[in-house]
């Protein structure tokens, strides 16, 4: 009986754009100048938005907020390979993904201010709210992709999880289904190096996270997640393969969480500032700017215009967010069931009694109108 090798891994890593803005012409995906400029706009604007959101949190105008700085290419670029009717489920650190899908960011702020009205996505988009217990959406995305396959219109489902989440059983079961049923699914592992305080090397002992794909008959690749061109090339290829019925892809985007885990975290407790500085040199936005400038698509004048436009856009979103009236407490009873059961009807009335007890008989008149469907 022989002992022979019957399978081996061939794990590829894709890098196209160097940190000095030069790029590998042989690997360059077909991307129009317009789309290149759109990638830059999205990354530039979401970073500025992120900075403002942190300021809002620090000044008590926002709740706990997960910053995305450093991960703009991994977040903003893959959605550009999709149609609105394709499904997308990012992680909670997914502001860039939603922004690239056209979400009005006032709603993102509203959500992180603890307001349920913040889960508001553009009409016609198949966007889903992320799951906070990490990874629990991954099997659902297999179902979303399955539904797309059954519809037979070439639709796909794309989702994200972190390097930490890749340790959870959910990914195992999701990829098992995706591979087994050859689903049009794109799983992006947004490897930002840290699961709160736990570094990537303390997750899987494997050399890469991309190679997990092989265990499930799923195509896998690692890309430089700070290289917008590589991220685009890998996702566009994965989407094309999925649309043609050739099955799922797992893409490990290697990037870096430049900020704290959230505003409630202090990363200086557990990581070396030198690592952060080393990654700053690999910044996705500055290298893309160099690339665009060398292609004569960008200059300082355009940068200045975009910067001004961005600040006024953010001002507008923050203003719109802060002008939302406080939610009516009775809203929480809406939209829990197609038809509210007796218990909820009674309990809602009980909450009305409580509000009257607190604020007097006229209090209900002074509340903002209720939202949502009840009973």
């Amino acid at each position, binding site marked *: 009986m022989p002992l022979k090798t019957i399978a081996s891994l061939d794990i590829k890593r894709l890098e196209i754009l160097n940190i000095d803005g030069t790029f590998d012409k042989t690997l360059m995906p077909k991307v129009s100048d317009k789309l290149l400029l759109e990638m830059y706009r999205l990354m530039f604007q979401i970073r500025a938005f992120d900075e403002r959101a942190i300021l809002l949190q620090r000044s008590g105008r926002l*709740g*706990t907020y997960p910053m995305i700085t450093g991960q703009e290419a991994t977040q903003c670029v893959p959605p550009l390979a999709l149609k609105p009717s394709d499904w997308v489920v990012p992680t909670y650190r997914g502001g860039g993904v939603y922004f690239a899908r056209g979400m009005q960011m006032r709603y993102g702020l509203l959500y992180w201010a603890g*307001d*349920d009205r913040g889960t508001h996505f553009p009409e016609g988009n198949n966007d889903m709210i992320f799951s906070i217990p990490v990874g629990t959406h991954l099997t659902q995305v297999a179902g979303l992709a399955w539904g797309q396959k059954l519809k037979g219109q070439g639709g796909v489902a794309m989702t994200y999880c*972190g390097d930490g989440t890749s340790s959870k059983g959910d990914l195992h079961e999701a990829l098992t289904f995706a591979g087994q049923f050859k689903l049009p699914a794109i799983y992006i592992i947004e490897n930002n190096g840290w699961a*709160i*305080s736990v570094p990537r090397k*303390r997750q899987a002992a494997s050399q890469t996270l991309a190679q997990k794909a092989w265990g499930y008959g799923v195509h896998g690749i690692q890309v430089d997640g700070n290289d917008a061109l590589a991220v685009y090339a890998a996702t566009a290829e994965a989407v094309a393969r999925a649309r043609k019925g050739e099955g799922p892809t797992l893409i490990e985007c290697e990037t870096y969480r430049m900020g704290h885990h959230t505003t409630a975290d202090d990363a200086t407790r557990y990581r070396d500032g030198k690592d952060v500085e080393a990654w700053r040199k690999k910044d996705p936005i500055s290298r893309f700017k160099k690339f665009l400038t060398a292609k004569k698509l960008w200059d300082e004048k355009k940068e200045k215009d975009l910067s001004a436009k961005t600040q006024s856009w953010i001002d507008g979103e923050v203003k719109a967010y802060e002008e939302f009236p406080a939610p009516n407490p009775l809203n929480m009873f809406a939209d829990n069931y197609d038809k509210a059961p007796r218990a909820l009807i009674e309990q809602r009335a009980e909450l009305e009694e409580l509000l009257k007890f607190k604020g007097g008989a006229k209090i209900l008149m002074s509340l903002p109108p209720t939202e949502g469907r009840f009973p």
Partner: protein
Amino acid sequence: MKTAPKPAAVRTLNLVQAVNEALDVAMGKDERVMILGEDVGRNGGVFRATEGLWKKYGDDRVVDTPLAEIGIMGSAIGLAITGMRPVAEIQFDGFMPSVFDQVVCHLGRIRSRSRGKMSVPLVLRAPHGGLIHAPEHHSESPEAYFCHTPGIKVVIPSTPYDAKGLLIAAIEDPDPVVFFEPKLLYRSAKGEVPSGHYTVEIGKARLVKEGKDITLLTWGAMTVTCEKAAERLEKEDGVSVEILDLRTLAPLDLDAVLASVGKTGRCVIAHEAPNTGSWAAELSALIAERGLLRLLAPVARVGGWDIRMPLFRLEQYYIPDADRVVMAARKTLSF
């Protein structure tokens, strides 16, 4: 295993410091005690419950695990079977459902499935409850799911003294203990805590205050809410209120519950979880079964609504406050 005990010094600590000290004392006393969880090592836990322990006891005893709750729970069960005393941390109450398979199908059953040959002396720690303006799934009250599961004990302290004494008792207990820590009280509850080793008996309620007209039965952070409500009821209504903090939810201190309700004849059960199928429902049933003839009014339950916990802008309208306890108590008193 070492040294003669020093006389205990009493200091004022908050609840999370008391938890930290309990872990330290238990680890110092028994080298089989180990901690595993997400961010419990170098970072000292997201609430700092394990602060300083990684530095003191090292990587092998304070383990930053991969991000995998089933892995944490299942491996803690295995470790406990081999004779270790694992203290597993699940970072937030809302992340506990993924460990249910291990809890429901294995944790409480291994002793009986092995015909008493094996036991699982582990502690599963998790923060509990709301009102800290946390994101979604960070403010849950899942105690009923665990209490419903045979073979495990469920503990939830509301004072620093109890937190330390109960946690040491839980770690030394021969059976699995789920240990909830009210996160609202982590820093707001302060109290005197002796240094060194002591235990608070699992399965015994705490009489917070004596009274004769009505009993408030409660646990966790709601104990503090009940104290506020009692103060108002005594001042505004001139009634005498007794408060019982259960401290251990499973096994229940039924003697204490029946003694109190038997004395006052009126009872409001206050807690954070949705009322339907809650631990308050179990208590209410037990009181009806065993104490009906002593009751002067129906037992009232004040809990969360039967809907998911809303995002934090509305959490103060979901989790009962003193107003709701006062309203329920007045209805019960005027029945």
